């Protein structure tokens, strides 16, 4: 199942490289919701998060031919793009408006919209549960430092200032946290 899934995604990407819109639609159906959730957690804005998702898949459409399947997993590649695009927008917004962005917590009270594909819903829920379990094993201070870097795009100095820690302590917490997370996730592959 795992091998088949990886193969399917590789095959999808090859088809996207040949400008096959049906393949892009299939990749979108699989990943758009989680990419949107990541963007929304950082930006707290539906409009900005939608733009990020559009940017990510537009980039995939244009650059799929250059993607090296041997270098990284496809979901890792997508998450790197979404994070980069999200943080670009976050920094631009912070510079331009100087206003506090709406809290992602506001979205928690809204009902979750199920997708049209119940199988994808179940797979996504399983992945989420697995990662949340792994993250829960981290000491709070390590999780906090990693999430400030990942979702808020703070630099090491900014994290140190926000948490009232030395730079060295921040580095250590991030390093130890990621190392533990890697072990907790083990050889897990998204199914």
């Amino acid at each position, binding site marked *: 199942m795992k091998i088949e899934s990886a193969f399917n995604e590789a095959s999808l990407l090859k088809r996207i490289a040949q*400008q096959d*819109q*049906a393949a892009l*639609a299939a990749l*979108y*159906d699989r990943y*758009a*919701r*989680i990419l*949107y*959730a*990541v963007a*929304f*957690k950082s930006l707290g804005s539906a409009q900005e998060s*939608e733009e990020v*998702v*559009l*940017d990510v*898949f*537009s980039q995939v*459409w*244009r650059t799929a031919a250059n993607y090296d399947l041997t270098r*990284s997993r496809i*979901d*890792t590649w*997508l*998450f790197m793009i979404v*994070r*980069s695009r999200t*943080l670009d927008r976050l*920094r*631009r917004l912070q510079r331009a408006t100087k206003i506090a962005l709406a809290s*992602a917590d506001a*979205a*928690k009270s*809204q009902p*979750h*919209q199920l997708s049209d594909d119940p199988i994808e819903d179940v797979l*996504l829920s399983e*992945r*989420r549960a*697995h*990662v*949340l379990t*792994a*993250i829960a094993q981290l000491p709070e201070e390590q999780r906090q430092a*990693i*999430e400030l*870097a*990942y979702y808020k*795009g703070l*630099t*090491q100095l900014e994290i140190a200032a926000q948490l009232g820690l030395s730079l060295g302590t921040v*580095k250590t917490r991030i*390093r130890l946290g*990621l*190392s533990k*997370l*890697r072990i907790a996730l083990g050889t*897990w592959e998204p199914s």
Partner: protein
Amino acid sequence: MNNEDRCFCELAPLYALDLLDEQDQTWIEQQAAASSDLATELADIQATVGAISYSAEPVPMATDLKDRLFQRLSQPVATELVRDLRPRQAESQRLDRSSPRRRNPKWLQVGGAIATLALIALFVDNYRLRQTTQETQSVIAALQQPDTILYTLRGTEKATNASGSLVINPTQKTLTVLTQNLPNLPSGQTYRLWAMPKGATKPSFCGQFNSRTNGTTSQLSNSDAVCNGAVSQMLITAESATAPLVPAGDLVMKSVL
């Protein structure tokens, strides 16, 4: 920091979270490029960082976003180029954060913006010219091949004014579709080309393209022998871009003998 002071295992997690300065980033990339073990190590750490994304709580998402994506993909290249420039500008500003802040005079910023726009316009013009030239050259090259197959395309009652040609280069396995007066499709729709061999009950998918009423040249690539040989008829239908590869939409053009 000297090379001797650096440790891959310490810097790689910070690299994966984009927390390193340019110098350390480059060093990590060089190490990974020089050692497959370190490249694998880095990919594992990046996958771990990527997996954090799965912890984000699902939130409601607009149902028309996919349609907007395909609408965006069908937009002219100029918009895409401008959009592409923004993240790069933001990225360069982000990299600049680590260095002392320099304040450029206003006139320099305005001048820079004008120069950037002029460059974009020039780039777009060049891109279009290059694209048109390449399209023309590929058609000429295809017509010069001894085994080239040429079809005349005519519009059906769904596109009565449409006309065009299909040039197939079996050697390079390319199909060039030239159309005139084929209507612009709404977002999320695309034209699909099908080959119907003699005696076959189902057409074979050969590729898809978008069209502009003022004339379009679309080059498709398909290694399927059915698409690269002489068949009894070539068909073009209007379909949903995300539909399975089975003809279900209106037949808008077909080849004539």
